[in-house]
């Protein structure tokens, strides 16, 4: 199941194909659980039973820490249950039921315990009187199999051996959500026998009421499930991540317009998109920024952020950090790998001229269905420095590198950004990130010192971006004689006067922030004066 789920997950990169695969799996769960719970004609109207199982499985799909393997294993479990429960009671069937338990554990993990307990419950309520207690041996046998798996170290912990914890990110504690499909299966399999007794199919009015109540309960269940497990917060980030992965920078910017963003990851994606479009400094304050973490969330040792961190560092030309994040993300990815991050590792190793290792990664990608074409296209760069330099992407990043075997370190933050801009003054992304960092940190001395340094070295553009001009005006407010010399435009000067006028006018007004925001929300002055940041 692990291999099958990893195989299928590779298709999730194709829009809607992942959703289609999950929908098919969920539909099978619905169909099979319908057959399982509603075996008798009189119980057919109790669609709430399979529907709740279906919905609970759907909710698990929203949580990206729950492996797809869990859903497939659950499907296999109920399929086996359906086969054996609907089969005629015979010695052969009973032998196969016992054989299925270790087989199921080997194929799909702890769902074998669920299978055994469910089968026992079914037999307990429906089987022959003499045999029913005898089936208690089945869950005991399943527990023994799981215990042995842990005891012999095939499985790491008892939770992973007996519970769906095996289908959750290894280093995290699973939420209650992961147990809901299991609990529902246990409940419905227990009551399935009694459902026909609540026969409401006789009178039409009873039938309508019964169906209506079920619909209402399902709507309530669905609504509560979406509220509690819908993971709407991560939906935005997942969407942005998809756009970033496919270099759809305009879509990230469009998706951020008019939004009051509080999620640092969202702001990180936005700033990356602005940088890639070459307008980070120009447009960043049109969106709400919240300190230096808006550029790159603190360098946490968290594999979830690896792809984003790798992308940001690749964009600014810190290839070492990009490679590091891609590598760590790859090695800690669920299932032990990620085509996306391996692509990045191919690129970083080509940039460094580490062709043997790039070739190894290309060879691995060539074994996949969806990355094969791209991987083969990268073969031309192997052991060919001049072609790498000529390539628009690789060549541009190669220019960002300091001389080979130098002793410059990457520490992240402004120090590395400064090193990168010193190495390659044409590296506009690094320079924009550097000045963006200085502006967001609100350290005006830091800003004016570095501005002077860059000015002396002639590394500044002829036309300064508006936020930089606005910051300069703050630094040299009392020296109006040098404003023009510093590159501050008449427009900015006029705007500053208007800002100051309005501020003086409403300085005692408790709503001054809102008043200033209406007129000057997209200025650096407003950010500096009214946005609180964590230092």
């Amino acid at each position: 199941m692990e291999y099958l789920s990893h195989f299928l997950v590779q298709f999730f990169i194709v829009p809607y194909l992942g959703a289609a695969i999950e929908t098919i799996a969920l539909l099978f769960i619905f169909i099979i659980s319908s057959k399982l719970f509603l075996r008798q004609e009189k119980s057919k109207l109790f669609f709430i039973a399979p529907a709740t199982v279906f919905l609970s499985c759907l909710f698990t799909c929203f949580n990206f820490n729950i492996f797809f393997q869990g859903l497939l294993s659950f499907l296999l479990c109920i399929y086996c249950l359906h086969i054996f429960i609907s089969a005629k009671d015979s010695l052969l069937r009973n032998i196969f039921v016992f054989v299925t338990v270790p087989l199921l554990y080997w194929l799909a993990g702890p769902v074998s315990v669920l299978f055994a307990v469910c089968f026992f419950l079914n037999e307990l309520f429906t089987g022959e009187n003499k045999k029913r207690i005898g089936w208690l041996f089945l869950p005991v046998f399943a527990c023994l199999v799981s215990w042995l798996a842990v005891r012999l170290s095939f499985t790491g912990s008892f939770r992973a051996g007996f519970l769906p914890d095996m289908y959750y990110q290894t280093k995290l504690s699973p939420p209650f959500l992961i147990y809901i499909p299991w609990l529902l299966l246990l409940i419905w399999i227990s009551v399935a026998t009694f459902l026909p007794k609540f026969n409401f199919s006789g009178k039409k009015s009873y039938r309508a009421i019964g169906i209506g109540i079920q619909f209402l309960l399902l709507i309530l269940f669905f609504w509560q499930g979406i509220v509690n497990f819908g993971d709407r917060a991560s939906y935005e980030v997942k969407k942005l991540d998809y756009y970033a992965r496919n270099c759809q920078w305009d879509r990230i910017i469009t998706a951020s317009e008019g939004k009051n963003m509080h999620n640092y990851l969202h702001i990180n994606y936005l700033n990356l998109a602005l940088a890639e479009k070459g307008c980070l400094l120009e447009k960043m304050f049109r969106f709400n920024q919240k300190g230096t973490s808006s550029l790159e969330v603190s360098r946490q040792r968290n594999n979830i952020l690896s792809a984003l961190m790798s992308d940001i560092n690749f964009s600014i030309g810190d290839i070492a950090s990009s490679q590091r994040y891609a590598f760590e993300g790859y090695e800690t990815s669920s299932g032990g790998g990620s085509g996306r991050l391996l692509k990045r590792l191919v690129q970083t190793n080509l940039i460094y001229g580490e062709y043997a290792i790039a070739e190894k990664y290309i060879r691995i990608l060539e074994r996949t269905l969806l990355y094969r074409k791209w991987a083969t296209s990268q073969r031309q760069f192997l052991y060919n420095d001049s072609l790498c330099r000529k390539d628009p992407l690789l060549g541009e990043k190669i220019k960002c590198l300091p001389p080979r075997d130098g002793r410059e370190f990457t520490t992240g933050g402004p120090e590395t950004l400064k090193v990168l801009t010193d190495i390659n003054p044409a590296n506009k992304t690094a320079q924009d990130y550097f000045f963006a960092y200085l502006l967001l940190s609100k350290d005006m001395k830091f800003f004016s010192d570095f501005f002077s340094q860059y000015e002396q070295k002639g590394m500044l553009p002829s036309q300064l971006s508006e936020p930089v001009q606005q910051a300069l005006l703050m630094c040299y407010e009392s020296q109006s004689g040098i404003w023009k010399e510093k590159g501050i435009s008449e427009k900015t000067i006029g705007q500053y006067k208007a800002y100051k006028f309005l501020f003086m006018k409403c300085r005692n007004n408790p709503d001054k922030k809102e008043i200033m925001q209406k007129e000057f929300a997209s200025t650096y002055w407003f950010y500096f004066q009214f946005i609180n940041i964590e230092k």
Partner: protein
Amino acid sequence: MKQSKYAVGLLLCLLSFFSCSVPDIREYKDTGVSPDLFPDYIDVTVPCNIAPLNFRLQQPGTREVLWLEGKGRALKISSSDGKFSIPPHQWKNLLEANKGGTIKLTVFSKEGESWKRYNPFSIHISADPVDPYLVYRLIEPGYELWDKMGIYQRDLENYDESAVYENKMTGYNCVNCHSFCMQNPGEMMFHMRGQDGGTMLVKNGETEKLNTKTDSTISALVYPCWHPSGRFIAFSVNKIEQVFYLNNRNRIEVFDSESDVVVYDTDEHEIFTSPLLSDKKMLETFPGFSPDGKTLYFCSAKTFPVPVKSDSVKYSLCSVPFFPGTRTFGEKVDTVFNAEVTGKSASFPRISPDGRFLLFTVCGYGSFPIWHKEADLYMLDLKTKKYIDMSKVNSPDVDSYHSWSSNSRWIVFSSRRTDGLYTRPYIAHIGENGEAGKAFMLPQKDPSFYDAFMKSYNIPELVKGEVKTDPYCIAGRAKSPGVSVKFR
């Protein structure tokens, strides 16, 4: 009807027989060049008890044939994809018949309708067996994050690999620095970090958890080496840091900001040291006992501001007398390898069990040679005080952590020569007088195994038999409070 079924079956059997049979090559053209093989097993020296050295031809034709010829025996193997899988039983017989001799291998490749022959090459079969098991940690050659890792053992006489301990048993924590007492699989230790952190000591069939951080030492115990008696283990205690280069072949610089050497007494649960091993102005690390247990080797360097001056930190290889009876050290330190004279840095001193050779790693600077491309193995003959030529062992890439077989005739070490990043175990023969044979890569059943394998072989250690620890019991012991060691 029934008869025709039998006929089809027979035909299929015949077809499959002929398709798998080795073609009889009578005419061929000599290429005049050696075959390009992976792994490179041309002219290597191998132990008489090693698993078949399966390999592949890097540029295969439409069909390949391998002839293996030795004293009294010959083998022919056919391949349709360039990979040669030598039948284990026949390989074993071939080695047995040619112990101390040489087998000749000839590769033929078919292109179109004609065959070409590469230059034949030899594999030397040493009569010296290698210890049957190799223990290593499998981990991605990463930075700070990891997921699954473990310590594994490989049966060198076949391809069987089993776990000694996997971190899934204790919440995917870090496990490292496994070490054995004189290649004895029954006496071992390794560290665990994280929530259930501690040093796991396996001795006399018992597993003990040790809490090894004391108020008098700068860290918990780190790099180990057992005293041959099994009573003591020398350790370094280190404050280790790492930085990442922007553009350097070595990627990462790992360095100590402080370090000392201490000795742990397994009977008394005590740590002791000497001022010579814990000088605050010096960095002392990588201890290693001589096989007679009377000398403790270690590496020592002057401190410099790190990481800025980390390239100035160069470790000399030193030794100091050790008196196990009184748990004391001599008062004079000898310098075996002088960093100031050579301008290089030494690490991992390991003496052959017969006491004749001192094997250590040398790199440009620092204490973490695995991230130094220039790292090579050096071997000093302690009898003649001369260095042995190790050119057949070393490569242009990293050649680092090493250990000896119990008969002193084999070394195993980790090398990044294949792709520059993933360390692979290499085994080399050391003659009685120190002549080093060409090293060979740990053979795998599938010669393409290493292509897609994304983990490094870390700390390869040869052992005399199978490690029979119970991971479940170790995990259980790890969750116990453990014994806190004292500093004397």
